[in-house]
């Protein structure tokens, strides 16, 4: 995989996480700051294998946040709309 293709995937992952962080219960600003920190910490990584690993970790985080949101919503609805 070329470094250009990898770079576009990393940017796509960042955009996805940024969009998901907008409704983070702990605060959107906190999430966005942490996100930027996490990405800048790894900005000097060159090996494609390592970058792939980090992208996979990022996608795992995306799934975790989705699960968090849906569970939060389910619990709120169950508490309010069930007898």
């Amino acid at each position, binding site marked *: 995989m070329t470094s250009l293709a990898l770079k576009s995937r990393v940017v*796509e992952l960042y*955009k*996805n996480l940024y*969009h*998901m962080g907008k*409704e983070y*219960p702990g605060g959107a600003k906190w999430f966005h700051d942490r996100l930027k920190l996490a990405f800048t910490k790894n900005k000097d990584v060159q090996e494609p294998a390592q970058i792939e690993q980090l992208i996979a970790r990022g996608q795992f985080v995306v799934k975790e946040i*989705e699960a968090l*949101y*849906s569970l*939060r*919503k*389910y619990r*709120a*609805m*169950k508490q*309010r*709309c*069930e*007898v």
Partner: protein
Amino acid sequence: MVTPVSTVTACYFWDFFFGTLDCKKLLISEIFLTLDAAIHMINQRNLKITEPSIMRILVGVKRVVDYAVKIRVKPDRSGVVTEGVQHSMNPFDEIALEEAVKLKEKKLATEVVAFSLGGPKSAEVLRTALAKGADKAIHVQVSDAEAGKVESFHVAKALKKVVELEKFDAVFLGKQAIDDDSSQTAPILAGLLDWPQALYASKVEDAGNGHVKVTREIDGGLDTIKVKTPFVLSADLRLNEPRYATLPNIMKAKKKPLKNIPIKDLAVDLTPQTETIEVTEPPVRQAGGFVEDVATLVSKLKEKGFVKA
């Protein structure tokens, strides 16, 4: 299609359907006709259902105050503060939409159309619906002032008009909206259209031959019914887990068609049937009192009259 067969086989068929008769006395054409009828009868019984039971689904969605927002009552007690507050799609409507999209993915539905009756900002919710898998969207637009006074009855009347115009086979709605909790739109619509209704659905399955099997969550437990299409469904909490609208899907949804219909084109009368007199917050919870030991607790209970003195 008449297939040529030996006279002997024809006699077997004849015996099977009409009892023993001397088949040598019959005309060959009569034997062939009987055979043809026999094959047709057997084929009918073994007919493989290739036609999906549900064809086109209309999903109603509503733009409501987001579930995570802390609701505040307006100072004049006429309603709830909605200005500048985060809005999103009603959670039960998300579940209804997810079920329709799931049915489309299982090839039991051909098209999913999202519908919303509301002010101009409802278009955002419709775009989210398109991002979550709907093919088209219909926005029946009213002014913001009118939107505050719209009731379930009016929405049901508008849905009826749309269904009659575009010929849908099912209407999926959320069981209730989290802002008014009326749960009226689905049953009113079923009554207006004279369609069967499957409310509080927690599972939807294809039952073949234009029927759908729906499991409903009711007070006593689960209730399984079979409804004939076309029908109205209202989605309950455990029907499915709605998908998240990812950024690439949101981008793709921008190309999907969103049709705008002004309310006057549908000729629906929006006169409110109810008048809100007052909206107040629930009473503030009183702090509990502490007691040092059991004796004090018992004496306090006797004081308050909960325990016979």
